[in-house]
């Protein structure tokens, strides 16, 4: 346990030093603030549930940005240290490989969580500071949006490690990571949409669609946030999906957790088998 914290501490220290923490926090905060104030334009000032609108726009932002940031900081974690030659020295110390991996995971997740909390928190804070009234229900929805964003980040950090511990050089890891991002964030949904249009509801039943949605962590995240509260789903136009879906919020959260744990386990296995 102590070794994990030592490695995590070093990752955070490095993240602070090479400005990763600063850059991601500023990026998320800037985009969140922009969306908060520009995003309220279509609803005008009569919208009493301003934070619910913000949740819809921020979760769309998260789907694009958080996986990208997570893959950027994680794809290099193993293969990069191996290429630079720092891994051999680290592993000659009394520390197990799984401890190194888990320590990095904790460290990278802490960086991501900090950036998300501060960045999105700034948006909500700004909204509250400008005198908008926000009820407790909206706050709960906002908090679960931030929490699930961090969980989505965890899933993609784990996927990034998986890539990083399997490939031979950093360039390959970067290429595969970009491919994974494109697949999950853009291509998968388009493909799914195309499939539904072509199929016209003949073979793809509701349960098959649910299963297909669970196979993509960004879809799991989207469903969780855009259907979890009645107000939000009304704003996001997902109310119809929410009513017919078998996927309850606990199931979706569990699916996201599985998306983090399975790749992390695979990464640990691949890393422990790797010859140095």
């Amino acid at each position: 346990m102590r070794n994990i914290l030592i490695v995590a501490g070093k990752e955070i220290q490095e993240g602070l030093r090479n400005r990763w923490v600063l850059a991601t926090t500023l990026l998320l905060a800037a985009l969140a603030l922009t969306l908060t104030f520009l995003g309220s334009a279509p609803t005008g000032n009569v919208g009493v549930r301003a934070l619910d609108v913000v949740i819809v726009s921020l979760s769309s932002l998260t789907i694009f940005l958080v996986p990208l940031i997570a893959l950027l900081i994680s794809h290099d974690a193993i293969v990069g240290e191996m290429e630079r030659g720092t891994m051999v020295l680290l592993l000659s110390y009394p520390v197990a490989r799984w401890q190194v991996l888990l320590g990095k995971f904790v460290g990278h997740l802490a960086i991501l969580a900090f950036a998300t909390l501060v960045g999105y928190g700034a948006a909500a804070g700004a909204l509250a500071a400008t005198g908008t009234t926000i009820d407790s229900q909206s706050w709960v929805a906002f908090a679960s949006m931030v929490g699930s964003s961090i969980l989505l980040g965890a899933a993609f950090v784990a996927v990034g490690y998986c890539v990083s511990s399997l490939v031979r050089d950093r360039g390959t890891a970067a290429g595969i990571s970009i491919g994974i991002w494109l697949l999950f964030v853009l291509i998968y949904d388009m493909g799914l949409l195309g499939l539904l249009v072509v199929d016209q509801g003949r073979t793809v039943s509701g349960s098959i669609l649910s299963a297909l949605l669970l196979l993509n962590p960004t879809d799991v995240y989207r469903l969780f946030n855009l259907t979890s509260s009645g107000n939000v789903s009304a704003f996001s136009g997902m109310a119809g999906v929410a009513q017919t879906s078998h996927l309850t919020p606990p199931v979706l959260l569990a699916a996201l957790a599985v998306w983090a744990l399975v790749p992390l386990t695979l990464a640990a296995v691949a890393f422990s088998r790797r010859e140095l």
Partner: protein
Amino acid sequence: MTVTVEIHDVTKRFGHVEAVRDVSFTLPEGETIALVGHNGAGKTTLLKLMLGLIRPSRGNIRVLGEDPAAGEFAARRRLGYLPENVSFNSALTGRETLAFYARLKREGSGALAPLLERVGLSHAADRRVGTYSKGMRQRLGLAQALLGAPRILLLDEPTTGLDPALRQSFYEIIEELRGHGATVLLSSHALTELEERAGRVVIMNRGLKVADGSLDELRRIAQLPTRIRLKVAASGIADVQSRLAPLGDWRRVNGHMLEIAAGSDQKIELLRRATAESGPIEDVDVAPPTLDELYAHFLRSQEVPR
């Protein structure tokens, strides 16, 4: 004498390549051992095996009584390793880097300052490692290897990038640790440098151990001739050959110098004759075979029968 490292019939294959073949040796405490060989002779593979970074394909290894690859960490805490071309994360300072490694070895932060002082990095301790020169990185590498009073030091090409003064202080540190009972294994190309420092030499070639022993033992086995240089008064150069006969293998270096390659059995006899009264000899230089020559000899003698 306590044995710290035991290597028993170890073979390591990477795919079809046998990086190390049937190598056995033991390392006692309080000794400096030089591990010598070409690039690709299996030196680094042996070090990684001892560290438990890779597992042997066959045979077994004990380091401080433990299997290093078994995931037990008691031994690793008492082991210092300096990899070839050591590198560190360039964003952190020297002190931060050393503090990180100290925490992993459960060393208090009080040990850092004296260690940095010892390797001559105190003035640069709070600068980023990215700004360090090659020699400074090497010194930081040495500092981390010295954390926690190691009982075994595995040093891969330790003096590359160090200037002569630092090299000297590096060997002083090594000698001090050895005096306290540490096993020091130096892998190097710089043979002349190791010659005076290593009590024992292990020569590797293409994964095989071809020689193992103290420098004197190896000289005896190799039976390489000692080179004797005689400076002769200009007038005596003509008849020196007849006076000293039989000379064996000899050559004339210049107008007043002869070089004789003398076998160990005729060396003393030859010197006696050369320094006899009224001889024309003005000066004598005796050079035993160097580690370089021994190394070349053992590589050749292994290659002939194959």
